[in-house]
């Protein structure tokens, strides 16, 4: 948690000492490090290194700028799910400037920013939510009489690294969609001389933020990024390839209209517009809000919110994506659907679905337990034929 909710971590205390005082066992701690290794997709051999780094680190300063935004990303982060130990990961930080939560306002708040920048020059982590409007000389977002752009540029100067949190900071999101009236751009358009990690999503899952920060603190570098600056550990897999409803797709079992018979059986949402086949996101694995559910799990198609320009490229949301390839058979959903309509394969399909679907409960526990042992659970790795289908589409 972003606040001293957990037993606060005093300045001269290492995490190891701190955990001991909190009554957290070595075993729990190592298990957590194992989970982090799994989430980050690194080998289990890295677990001791994560543990060592975590145990010895001190609370680093974090400055969080909120620019042109809706505060949804802040809300997402305060819902971060891992109890106790997960909270600790964010409690690891000294959150020195954060508008939504900080006690001070006005000059006192701005002084907190200046002081933190000075005291931690070159060392602080800069988190940014919101985009930067460039039109009309930047006057569409100002704080304390200064433009978002000038605040970002000034604050980024002393940052060790920058995390662009959420779709707005990533690429501008809703206000940057056509016709982008304010000329909104993402952080990496402005900050070119620093590493910028894009945590994609509108909003992103809080646990992805947590894992990215842990990676940074542990390995003293940012995680490997994809071509769009997103951490590979979270965004290298397609929703469609990890979806618990995937077997229904392969079997040609689709929701044709909301609340139809297929919807009430949890069939694939492709026909009602699911953008899972074109979206790279950890939603099906991390899930949302303490692993309660996720968009497809609650019956709504994925809207592709981790992808750049999704407000323009993924809309209309309820229109079907064209020409999505099947997994084992290179047929489009239309052909599969048509053959099923004949009824010949119906029995086979039902069987395939029954055996092929990931059961939510077993998947949940698999994800939870896999972490303690090794790197990515099976659900995270791609089969070769999926890889080719996916490469073909990129």
């Amino acid at each position: 948690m972003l606040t001293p909710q957990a037993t606060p971590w005093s300045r001269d205390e290492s995490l190891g000492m701190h955990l001991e005082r909190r009554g957290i066992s070595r075993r729990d701690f190592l298990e957590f490090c194992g989970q982090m290794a799994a989430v980050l997709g690194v080998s289990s051999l890295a677990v001791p290194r994560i543990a060592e780094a975590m145990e010895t680190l001190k609370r680093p300063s974090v400055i969080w700028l909120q620019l042109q935004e809706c505060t949804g990303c802040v809300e997402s982060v305060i819902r971060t799910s891992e109890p106790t130990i997960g909270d600790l990961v964010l409690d690891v930080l000294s959150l020195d400037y954060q508008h939504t939560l900080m006690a001070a306002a006005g000059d006192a708040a701005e002084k907190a920013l200046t002081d933190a920048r000075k005291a931690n020059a070159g060392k602080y982590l800069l988190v940014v939510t919101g985009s930067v409007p460039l039109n009309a000389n930047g006057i569409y977002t100002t704080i304390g009489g200064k433009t978002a752009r000038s605040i970002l540029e000034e604050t980024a100067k002393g940052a060790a690294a920058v995390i662009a949190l959420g779709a707005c900071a990533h690429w501008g999101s809703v206000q940057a969609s056509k016709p982008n009236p304010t000329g909104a751009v993402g952080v990496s358009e402005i900050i070119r001389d620093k590493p910028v990690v894009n945590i994609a999503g509108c909003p992103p899952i809080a646990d992805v933020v947590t894992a990215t920060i842990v990676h940074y603190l542990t390995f003293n570098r940012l995680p490997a990024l994809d071509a769009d600056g997103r951490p590979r550990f979270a965004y290298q897999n397609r929703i469609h390839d990890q979806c618990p409803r995937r077997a229904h797709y392969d079997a040609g079992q689709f929701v044709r209209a909301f609340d139809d018979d297929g919807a009430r059986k949890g069939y694939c949402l492709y026909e009602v517009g699911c953008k899972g086949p074109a979206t790279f996101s950890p939603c099906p694995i991390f899930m949302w809000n303490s692993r309660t559910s996720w968009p497809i799990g609650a019956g709504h198609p994925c809207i592709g919110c981790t992808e750049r320009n999704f407000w323009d490229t993924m809309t209309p949301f309820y229109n079907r994506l064209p020409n999505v390839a099947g997994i084992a058979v290179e047929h489009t959903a239309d052909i599969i659907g048509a053959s099923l309509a004949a009824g010949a394969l119906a029995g086979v399909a039902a069987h395939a679905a029954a055996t092929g679907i990931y059961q939510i409960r077993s998947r949940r526990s698999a994800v939870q337990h896999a972490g303690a042992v090794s790197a990515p659970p099976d659900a995270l790795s791609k089969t070769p034929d999926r890889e080719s289908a996916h490469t073909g589409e990129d």
Partner: protein
Amino acid sequence: MAITKIVVDPITRIEGHLRIEAQTDNGKITNAWASATQFRGIETILQGRDPRDAWAFAQRICGVCTVVHAVASCRAVEDALDIRIPANANSIRNLVLGMQFVQDHVIHFYHLHALDWVDVVSALKADPAKAAQIAASISPWPNNSATHFKEVQNRVKTFVGSGQLGIFTNGYWGHPAYKLPPEVNLIAVAHYLEALDWQRDVIRLHTIFGGKNPHPNFLVGGMASAINLDEDATINSARLADVQGMISRAQRFVEQVYWPDLVAIAGYYKDWAAVGGGVGNYLAVGEFPETDIRDLASLYFPRGVILNKDLSKVLPYDHNGVSESVHSSWYDYEKGDVGLHPYEGETKPHYTGPEPPWTYLQEQTKYTWMKAPRYNGHPMEVGPLARVLVAYASGHKEVRAMASDTLKALNAPPAALFSTLGRTAARGIETVLIARRLTTWMDSLVNRIKAGDVSTFAPAKFDPSTWPAKARGYGALDAPRGALGHWVEIADGKITRYQCVVPTTWNASPRDDKGQVGPYESALTDNHPLAKADQPLEILRTIHSFDPCIACGVHVLDATGREITEVKVQ
């Protein structure tokens, strides 16, 4: 004494970017200006889009009020296309919206507002045993033990001792306006921390029905979460039981923690019942349809207007009374300095403020991105206080009972409600009532499922081929922060016009063409103290009592200067 100029920018612990400028004379605020300093242009972006997508765009107006714009948008499109959602979808939307209210109001109280009244550092001096005694005298909450309070105190002690104060850096600790005894401060700090855990749990109701929070998914025509008790992937008994558990925990926390804390803290700040009243006009569009949004009689909180603090009369609300002025806003009107009905509204942004970085805006004629909405020419306050007053004056039984009990506990007359403290109390009153009401909506959902009705979606008019060539609709919703309206016009399957009038636009409104100030500005000059010019604690109290949401308030307009013709309400 000389007039002192005050600037508070950023106002923190709110949504968005708000700047307050004020003048004080001898410890009182004599004049105030509220300036919204962010603008995004979402209505423009909606033009030409599929109206079934609009909820998702509109939802991104605000991630704090993450439900309200989505539902208002669905209502507007469903009104335009004459879509009646199934009763189950109505119950589910009430549950989702109701939990949004409860969670949002509790977060507001503890995490956005409390530090205006609670001195965290003073909690270090508390006697935990005495704190436990006080807590036990007002609530049966099981965590209120001396042991627990001692532990919290130790945490705070270590934290303060660490020298890394994080979000508590530069707070106004020790300010003379803090009046709580150390023990009450300690109780509040303990519950601040507990509320953080609590909110993360109960909001999962959104995840069950909408897949995630913030920004859960909605659907024009109903809800996408199909019900089937015999499937794993649908709303089934396990998920319903999870929801039931969240409702119980929400109710328990509100009744045993939030509400008793609010009343206890208010008892030390009774003087704030005479501060920060403001414009004295209140507008509520009403919320929580028990049947269908078209059935206004079925609204749990009624619709209506109160003028000049006159609780003997509730006037009917008619949208034709709404007009907007840009006298003080960074836009131009063709005909100059007049108030225009939204349907005739023009939206030509024209920034005339100083080049950034600037120091003061208050001498400027135009000083904000917020327009100035007026109802029959009056500035109106919207939000919990407006809803509670309209319900109270309409004879709403539960509201009357809660309000009377509260006033009795504080030994205050009804007029005390027209104040900073009244606003904060009204938020608590409606939270208690909505939390209780969640059970009614849950029961109606469960009973219909029991009777065999599992329908959550009206499919007949989802396909654009079934739509008329032209249609337009209005979606009204009373959001946690107040009255909200979305208007949509559709032609040939696409949005041609989209317009929102939003709670914070009403409350953070600047001066209009007649020189009338908006609710924030008015409240700040209503018998309003400011002890220390460099520590604007009192300003934060009153501004936070409105729970500002600036991204909501300034969502509008076409920054390229194209004119948007507004839509008429049906």
